[in-house]
């Protein structure tokens, strides 16, 4: 069941994002549309309303004008009134034309309004030819019988148109509100879909992440376990190697050397008991003794090289003292050993670790760093065991290449005892290898065993 998680996640998240963006754009444009519609509706209504108002005011004003004229006795002002009235009439005409354009659905009513208006204006025409006397006697009757009823009918039509206009506005608004509701429902549905999709994507992602995390956790645990096993294996290997060296060394001491000792004594006896004249046997026996002596030395050196018996017989200090003397005489270098503390109480693992570390470090110093003077210190600082090997050689980098394995070995041993190994340069050339081990918690059985020693 191997599917590409990142593709699924990308598709899910991308879809989600697209959905959000599209729905946002769509709803924004829809809202804009609705607002525009509402706006247009309002403007239209206001326009119609304003036009009607103007119409009404023109009609009313014209009524007042006519009355004024009828009351005015100055005959010569008749053309002036007529002109003004013509203006009102013209304005009224324009207004009706505007209304026709504005309010198409009510064309019938507007036309009848226009007709009524025409009649209304027509009514005034004869008045301007009236004499003063006519004005005085006829005007009241004229106003009551002709003007007022016509004006009322005009205003009634205008009122009707206005009401229709209002009704229209309400209807349109209701339509917009309905569309708004539909839009809101759509929006809500979209939102739910988005949320559901988002939740789905999130669930898949979380599930997948959890799986991956668990898997990586498992992998790490496996890797850690493998490393732990490897380290343990290395430690066991080291311990087994050390044990084998110990056994071999002891075997060489206890058996090979003893046989050689006995052999040497037997040869001595032959030498003492042989017939004095037999010079050939004498020479052969002497040769054998030399061979046995050489063999003895070889066996002893081999045993010490494997594991110095002093380490088990007398403890760390004796073993290090021997080793330092051995290195000094073998390589002609000046090796100083300074030890401060009772190291004979150290458990075998610690003794072996420190001994092998110093041994490896000294080998590095003389073989690779070409050192002439080496300082070895082993000190105890309260609950810590400090070991340092400092030389005046050519430094460590060149020495490291050939002996990395040996140093790694020390590092392993030191880590096994929860210690730290560091390598540092000394001013003016030379290198220091330092080891710090936690001092072991005292255990009864850590007393150095001195039951056996090489004889």
């Amino acid at each position, binding site marked *: 069941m191997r599917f590409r998680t990142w593709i699924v996640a990308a598709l899910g998240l991308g879809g989600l994002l697209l959905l959000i963006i599209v729905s946002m754009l769509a709803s924004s444009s829809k809202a804009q549309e609705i607002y525009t519609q509402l706006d247009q509706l309002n403007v239209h209504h206001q326009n119609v309303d304003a036009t009607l108002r103007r119409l009404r005011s023109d009609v009313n004003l014209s009524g007042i004008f006519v009355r004024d004229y009828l009351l005015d006795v100055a005959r010569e002002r008749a053309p002036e009134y007529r002109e003004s009235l013509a203006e009102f009439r013209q304005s009224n005409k324009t207004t009706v034309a505007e209304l026709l354009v504005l309010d198409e659905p009510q064309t019938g009513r507007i036309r009848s309004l226009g007709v009524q208006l025409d009649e209304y204006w027509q009514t005034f025409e004869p008045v301007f030819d009236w004499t003063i006397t006519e004005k005085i006697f006829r005007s009241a009757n004229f106003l009551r019988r002709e003007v007022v009823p016509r004006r009322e009918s005009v205003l009634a039509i205008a009122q009707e148109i206005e009401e229709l206009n209002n009704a229209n506005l309400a209807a349109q608004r209701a339509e917009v509100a309905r569309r708004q509701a539909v839009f809101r429902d759509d929006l809500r549905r979209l939102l739910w879909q988005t949320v559901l999709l988002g939740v789905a994507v999130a669930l898949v992602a979380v599930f997948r992440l959890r799986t991956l995390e668990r898997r990586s956790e498992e992998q790490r645990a496996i890797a850690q376990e493998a490393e732990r096993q490897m380290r343990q294996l290395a430690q066991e290997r080291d311990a087994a190697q050390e044990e084998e060296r110990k056994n071999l060394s002891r075997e060489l*001491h*206890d058996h090979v*050397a*003893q*046989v*050689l*000792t*006995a052999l*040497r*004594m*037997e*040869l*001595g*006896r032959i030498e*003492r008991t042989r017939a004095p004249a037999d010079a050939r046997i004498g020479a052969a026996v002497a040769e054998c003794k030399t061979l*046995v*002596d050489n063999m*003895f*030395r070889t066996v*002893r050196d081999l*045993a*010490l090289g494997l594991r110095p*018996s*002093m380490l088990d*017989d*007398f403890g760390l200090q*004796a*073993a290090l*003292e*021997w080793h330092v*003397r051995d290195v*000094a*005489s073998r390589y*002609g*270098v*000046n090796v*100083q050993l300074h030890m401060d503390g009772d190291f004979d109480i150290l458990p075998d693992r610690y003794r072996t670790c420190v001994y092998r570390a110093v041994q490896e470090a000294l080998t590095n110093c003389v073989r690779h760093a070409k050192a002439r003077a080496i300082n070895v210190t082993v000190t105890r600082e309260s609950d810590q065991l400090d070991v340092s090997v400092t030389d005046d050689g050519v430094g460590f980098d060149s020495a490291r290449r050939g002996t990395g394995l040996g140093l790694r070995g020390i590092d392993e041993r030191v880590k096994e005892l929860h210690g730290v190994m560091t390598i540092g340069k000394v001013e003016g050339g030379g290198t220091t290898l330092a080891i710090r081990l936690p001092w072991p918690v005292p255990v009864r059985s850590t007393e150095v065993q*001195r*039951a*056996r*020693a*090489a*004889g």
Partner: protein
Amino acid sequence: MRVLLADDHSIVRRGLRSLLEEAGHVVVAEAADGLEAVRLSEEHRPDLLILDIGMPKLNGIEVAARTQKLERPPGVIILSMHADESYIIRALAAGARAYLLKSATDEDLLPALRAVASGKPFFSPAVTAVLVEDYVRRLQTRGLTDSFHLLTDREKEVLQLLAEGRSNKEVATQLNVGLSTIETHRANLMQKLGLHNTAEIVLYAVRKGIIA
């Protein structure tokens, strides 16, 4: 002389026994481990112990130390594989008088026996050679000078007698001076040479070739 042999290898004991008996000595007992050696020493009170260092239960150095606490302590000859001072100094400190390399036993054992019988220390020539050689090399590599020339003639005499195995009292008698005088000389020479005990005095004397 009445001798007790202690070595966990019968093949070595057999060789030693025949060597000793040829020379007319008596092997009163043989022990195959350290504890047996101590027990047999208490039982037989031999004049001389010949001890291997590496033995089961108790090593030769411990056996030497324990038998020195007996009423009439036996002389002790240590047999060892090693010509290293870590062994020699511990053997001497435990009361051993002679230190022999196992490889040279057949040549060195009888001279060692004679030396110990007369109260003198004895070391295999091979051991002495190694010690001296080692000492000289260390002096050279460290660029140290020996402080032997700082000793007075009397101190040198005292050093030699002490190294030969005499007690302070014996030295006083031999040189015809008081015991406290010898004790003072001894303390002075030890301080000048940086020595801490009789075992180190003996080792120093061997290295310098004062005794062999």
